[in-house]
């Protein structure tokens, strides 16, 4: 595959391939972002 054919949205198969990879990215990055944001919101231990 090439970048071009990867982002090709014309066939159902390709759309599903794209959305599957997007799902993984969104969920993992989203969870990481949530943990990171809460990390910054929590007070660092006083030392």
């Amino acid at each position, binding site marked *: *595959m*090439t970048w071009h*054919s*990867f982002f090709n949205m014309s066939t*159902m*198969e*390709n759309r*599903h*391939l794209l*959305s*599957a*990879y997007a*799902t*993984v990215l969104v*969920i*993992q990055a989203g*969870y*990481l972002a949530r*943990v*990171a944001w*809460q*990390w910054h919101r*929590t*007070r*660092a*231990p*006083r*030392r």
Partner: protein
Amino acid sequence: MPNSPIRDKINPMEQRSPTLRNLAWLWFAIAVAVLVVGFREAIFLVPSDAAQGDVGRIFYYHVPIAMWSLLFPYLNFAASLAYLYWRNRDPLKALTADAFALASAEVAVVYTSITLITGSIWGRAAWGIWWAWDARLTSLLLLWLLYVSYLMLRRFSSTGQTQTLAAVLSVFAAVDVPIVYMSIRWWRTQHPAPVFFGGPDAGMDKSMLPAFVWNIIGWGIWGIFILLFRFALERRRQIADQDAALQAIEASLEIPQ
């Protein structure tokens, strides 16, 4: 009392040690690097599947994540047992175990959710159905439900009881998982033959191996990273709570002059 010996004992992990931070960043960088290589292998380098075409590339994300998603429930089980063991013997160790149990449960839900959703997307494109009530899918769905219910219990239960109740539920869930798997397997079988074990199409073509291996290593390293990050966050919260409680106690001690 900034240098109180009590505080030293309570917060063994609160050192804002640069070594730990650097190690964390390094691990994160390794995870991302391996995943990038894995992505490149999966999309650009490995040949497309003979039967399914390019849609089959979902395999390189779906299967590694599915495999790792079976690990985290066991970590949660181990941590919950540790919590129950240490609960009355060493409260501080118990607290750490509880933090680890929560972190591993959350990561289990994340990985299982991804497995279910990508599997569904793949199933629709490759085999025409979004879902089937066969042994493997149903078992995985039930695993997901069990650990979501664990997280709900943690959220809804009153403070003080949360940790013990959650640990108990975790034991139930862990014992239930193999039972669920066996019972549903007896009930039916329809999922395509696993690529590694059994079935006429057993084994993966050697040309697919690089993508698979890079991704399985990559998602494993990532899983460990995110698990430990979440664990550290929970520990930080616990320590912040303890600090606040300690401050309240100290303040109340200073009042009578």
